[in-house]
């Protein structure tokens, strides 16, 4: 089992832990709901060091990213980021990622924890015709997500010389103060010297930042942040999941997978079909015209909480299954996403089988909040 550098600190903070993709991670500290609501109304911090970081560098870096990534890349300026997919030839999603353009020759990719090896091997196996170096920097970088409506002002107060407010949404920059304070302490510098990165991105639907900083000094940086921001709540993966689900964000392994394509998940807007070519394009074009399944959002009408894997029915016909479900801390009711047969996509009243009983749910659009 992998643990992040913050494991011992989190143990002392009485975190509850959970195994997530081979990592032992805090699932909550005191109370999941409280952490969730605090991120919606104030500011919370998540250790997401289990996430992977891969860098693509070289003369052909942009061409290579353009060929492997579904979304447009050619219009990105230095520091800009874009969400999209690495798809296989069938259009299935190897991973959903954010790609940051560090400069014309370097792209930085944030990868889901369980997919790092897969993505790294897949990128390498497709890179023969390109002059690129693909580096797995996952063991070098830890990652902290600071999220919530107070995040920007508080991080700006903590790092007054870094012009935090000028870091626009979906861009990445360097955190000068951390560089000055911690660089000399590093035994192993990042191969590209980008040791302290800060991106205005996240997975909660709230404003905030993700910091990519060396694992070696993650403890000190974490303590500096939780000590320096008044009333910041340490949060676990439990609230990270409920926060993303309320916003209708997909989770790889649930709404997306190598068997599930972005068309089914209603994420076609992150595919740029105007590009000359990219892996999976042909299949995705076919799917976009003719897909038998679609992702829907729903709320419970009857009592109960939907969970991933539960079956969805319409008039005794099994029409699909729940991909993610929870009890929404903001709404105080059961919410879910599910994949159903497209023929039934206009039907409002459907049922979810919870244990032995079918429970009424109603179709709603998402985000739920």
């Amino acid at each position, binding site marked *: 089992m992998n643990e992040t550098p913050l494991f011992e600190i989190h143990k002392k903070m009485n975190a*509850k832990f959970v195994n997530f993709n081979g990592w032992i991670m805090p*699932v*909550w500290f005191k*109370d*999941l*709901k409280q952490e*969730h609501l605090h991120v919606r109304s104030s500011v919370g911090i998540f250790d997401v060091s289990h996430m992977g970081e891969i860098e693509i560098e070289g003369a052909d870096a942009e061409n290579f990213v353009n060929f492997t990534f579904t979304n447009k890349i050619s219009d990105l300026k230095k520091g800009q980021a874009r969400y999209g997919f690495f798809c296989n030839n069938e259009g299935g999603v190897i991973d959903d990622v954010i790609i940051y353009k560090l400069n014309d020759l370097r792209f930085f990719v944030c990868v889901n924890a369980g997919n790092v090896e897969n993505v790294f091997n897949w990128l390498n196996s497709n890179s023969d015709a390109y002059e690129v170096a693909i580096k797995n920097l996952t063991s070098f970088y830890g990652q902290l997500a600071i999220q919530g409506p107070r995040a920007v002002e508080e991080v700006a107060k903590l790092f007054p010389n870094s012009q935090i407010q000028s870091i626009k949404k979906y861009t990445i920059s360097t955190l000068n103060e951390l560089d000055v304070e911690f660089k000399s302490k590093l035994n192993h510098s990042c191969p590209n010297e980008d040791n302290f990165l800060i991106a205005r991105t996240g997975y909660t639907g709230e404003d905030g930042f993700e910091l990519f900083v060396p694992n070696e000094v993650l403890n000190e940086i974490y303590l500096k942040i939780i000590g320096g921001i008044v009333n910041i709540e340490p949060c676990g993966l*439990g609230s990270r*999941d*409920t926060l993303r689900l309320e916003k209708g964000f997909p989770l790889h392994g649930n709404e997306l997978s190598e068997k599930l394509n972005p068309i089914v998940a209603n994420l076609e807007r992150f595919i740029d079909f105007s590009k000359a070519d990219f892996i999976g394009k042909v299949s995705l074009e076919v799917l976009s015209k003719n897909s038998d399944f679609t992702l829907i959002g729903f709320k419970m009408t009857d*009592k*109960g*909480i939907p*969970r991933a894997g539960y079956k969805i029915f319409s008039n005794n016909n099994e029409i699909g299954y729940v991909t993610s479900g*929870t*009890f929404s*801390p903001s709404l105080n009711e*059961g919410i879910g996403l599910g994949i159903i047969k497209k023929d039934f996509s206009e039907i409002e009243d459907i049922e979810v089988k919870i*244990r032995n009983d079918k429970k009424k749910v109603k179709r709603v659009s998402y985000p739920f909040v």
Partner: protein
Amino acid sequence: MSEIIKDLKYSNDHEWIRLDGDHASIGITDHAQDSLGEIVFVELPKVGDVLEKSSIFGAVESTKSVSDLYTPVAGTVTEVNASVENEPELINSSPYREGWMIKISPTNVADIETLLSSEEYKNLIDG
């Protein structure tokens, strides 16, 4: 530290059972509620349901997860705690008292003796 009540009997599945005359009340332990986190939903059987030993009689759900409830000894449901259905958080705040879940009439009262003592249950969760 999780609270363990001395005079109760316990199951390996973290339920407690309290015999009171011909009836026995059942709930989940302090350790169980603490592991689950804030309980937001509970599903319980109906009065009159006949429960086999080790069968699933209901479920408790936190935001994060679902846990089945297992019948510690066979019996017939005589009462269901409507309060915890309406306020599942009672199971967190008072797992051994207000947070009780069902009462049963055990098929064989002596079965209760075969369950874990408070000492044995303590060893189970400390182990």
